[in-house]
C-alpha cells in the first residue's frame, strides 16, 4: 500500500471515529447535565406525590400527576395508533402488493406526515378540538398524539414488513392461505420483533412530545379520572415548572426531566430485549 493510501485510510478512520463517538459523547453529556441537576431533587416522595399549592408556585409535593398522565396519554395514543397503523401497514404490503405505484404514493404521504413538526399537530388538534366543542383534555391529547405517532408507526411497521422476503408470502400462498391468513398468521409472526420495537419507539416519541399536547391536553395538578378532564404530562411539567420563579419548583422540573429520561431509556432497552426475544421464530 502506498503512502497516500495509508494516509487516506487513517483520515477516514479518524473521521469515522470522531463521528461515532461524538454521538455517544453528546448523549452521555446530556444525561450528565440532566442527572446532575435533577438527581438531587429526585426522591420517592417527588415521584409518588402530587404537587401541592399549584404546580407553578407550590414548592411542595411531586410529579405523580405528570408521570401517570403521561402514561395515560401515551398508552391511549399508542393503542389508537396501533389500531389504525397495523392494518394500514398490512394493507400496503399485502393487499397492494401488485400496485407498486399506489404503495409508493401512500409511503410518500406518510413520510410527509412524519416530517411535520409536532407543534403543527398541536395546532391541528386544537382546531379540531374547537370544532368538536371539546376542552383541553386527556381525550383531545390522546387523539393529537395518536395523529402524531400514527405515520411514524405505519412507516415503521411498513419497513418491517418490507424486509420480509416475498418468498415467505409465496410459501404461505402455496399452502393455500388467503391474503388475510398470510397477513395474520405469517407476516405478523415474522415481523413481531420489529413491530414491538416500532411500537415502543412510537410510545417513546408520544411520551416525550410536548408541543403536540401544549394546546390540547391542558395541565392539571390532578390525575384525570375521565377522558374529558385535562391531563398533566412530563414534558409540559418540565416546560411549565422550569419557568417558575420558585427554586423548589424548578428543581421539580429537573426531577421530571430525569424521570422522563429514565422512562425513555427503559423503553429503548426494553425494545432491544423484546425484539431479541420475539425474533426466535423469525426466519433470518
Amino acid at each position, binding site marked *: 500500500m502506498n503512502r497516500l493510501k495509508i494516509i487516506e485510510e487513517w483520515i477516514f478512520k479518524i473521521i469515522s471515529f470522531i463521528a461515532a463517538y461524538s454521538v455517544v459523547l453528546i448523549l452521555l453529556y446530556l444525561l450528565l447535565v440532566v442527572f446532575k441537576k435533577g438527581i438531587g431533587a429526585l426522591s420517592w416522595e417527588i415521584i409518588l406525590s402530587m404537587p401541592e399549592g399549584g404546580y407553578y408556585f407550590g414548592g411542595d409535593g411531586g410529579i405523580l400527576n405528570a408521570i401517570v398522565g403521561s402514561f395515560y396519554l401515551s398508552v391511549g395514543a399508542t393503542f389508537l395508533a396501533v389500531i389504525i397503523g397495523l392494518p394500514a401497514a398490512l394493507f400496503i404490503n399485502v393487499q397492494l402488493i401488485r400496485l407498486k405505484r399506489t404503495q409508493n404514493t401512500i409511503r410518500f404521504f406518510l413520510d410527509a406526515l412524519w416530517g411535520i413538526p409536532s407543534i403543527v399537530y398541536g395546532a391541528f388538534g386544537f382546531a379540531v378540538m374547537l370544532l368538536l366543542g371539546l376542552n383541553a383534555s386527556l381525550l383531545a391529547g390522546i387523539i393529537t398524539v395518536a395523529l402524531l405517532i400514527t405515520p411514524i408507526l405505519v412507516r415503521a411497521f411498513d419497513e418491517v414488513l418490507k424486509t420480509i422476503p416475498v*418468498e415467505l408470502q409465496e410459501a404461505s*400462498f*402455496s*399452502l393455500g392461505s388467503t391474503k388475510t391468513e398470510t397477513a395474520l*398468521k*405469517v407476516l405478523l409472526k415474522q415481523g413481531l420483533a420489529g413491530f414491538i420495537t416500532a411500537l415502543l419507539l412510537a410510545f417513546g416519541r408520544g411520551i416525550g412530545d410536548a408541543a403536540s399536547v401544549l394546546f390540547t391536553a391542558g395541565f392539571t395538578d390532578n390525575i384525570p379520572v375521565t377522558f374529558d378532564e385535562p391531563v398533566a404530562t412530563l414534558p409540559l411539567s418540565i416546560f411549565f415548572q422550569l419557568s417558575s420563579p420558585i427554586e423548589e419548583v424548578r428543581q421539580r422540573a429537573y426531577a421530571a426531566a430525569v424521570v422522563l429520561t429514565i422512562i425513555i431509556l427503559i423503553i429503548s432497552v426494553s425494545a432491544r430485549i423484546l425484539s431479541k426475544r420475539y425474533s426466535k*421464530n*423469525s*426466519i*433470518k
Partner: protein
Amino acid sequence: MNSMTLSYQSQLTARRAVSQNEIKVSELKEAAPIVEIKGLNVRTKDGEILKNINLEIPKNKIVVLLGPSGCGKTTLLKSLNRLTDLHKELKVSGQILIDGQDITKAGQNLANMRQKMGLLSQRPFPLPASIYKNVAYGLKLKGIRSKKLISHSVETNLKRVGLWNEVQDRLKSPANSLSIGQQQRLCLARGLAVKPTIILADEPTSALDPISTKIIENLFKDLKKHYTIILVTHVLRQALRLADHVVFMYYGEIIEQGHPDDILKNPKTKILKKYLIDGN
C-alpha cells in the same frame, strides 16, 4: 445489436424450421398429461418473458425445466400456481389446464388450486413457527382441527422426507433452528401434508451442500411414484440424474424437449449445443 443477439436470432430461425411435431415427445404421450399449457405468454412493459409456451406434462414424471438464468423457467413455474398474480407488472395470457381445468380463468379458488401444487423454492422459507406448526399449517387451513389427525400427518410427512428421526424430540423448536438442508426437507414435508398432486421445485438444491442435495434428489426419485414433479434447474448433471423429460428454455421460449438422453447427449439445435458446452 450485438453478435450474441444476432447469433441467437439466426439460431431461432433455424430452429423454427424444425416443426414442433418433429421434437421427440413420445414420452409425454405415454401418459395422460396432468398439466397442459397452451399458448402461454407472460410479458411486462419491457418485453416478453414467456413466448407462446405449449407444453404437456405427464403424471408421475419428473419434468426438468432447463436453461440459463433469466430464460423464464421460474416465471413458467410460478405461472402454474398463479404466483404471477402477485406481480401486477406481469401480464399473463394463454391457458394452463391442470387436470383439464383452466386455472387462468377468473373466479378460481386460488387457495384450493395452490394446495394441489406444493412449492419448493431456491432457499427454504419455513414459516416463523415451530417445526410441528410448519407441517400443521396447511392442514389447519384445510379445516382439519383434530389434533390426532394433525399429529399423525406431521409424523407421516416428516418420516416421508426422512426428517422424523432428526426432529422427533424437538418438534416445538423453531423451524429456523434446523440446518438449511433440514429446512428444505421440512418445506417439502409441509407441502406434502396438504396432499398436492404436483410439486413445483425451483432450484431446490441450489443453496444446499452435496449431502443435502443428494437427500433431496433421492426423495424426488421416490416421490415421483405418487406426484408429478416439475423441477427447475440449471445443473445439467442433476437434470440427467433426475429427469424423465427435459424442457430446454432460452429467452422465454421452449427450444427443445424430450428424453434427457436425447436432449442432453444429442441436442438438435445450436443454442442447446452451445448451452451444454458453455453453460449460457
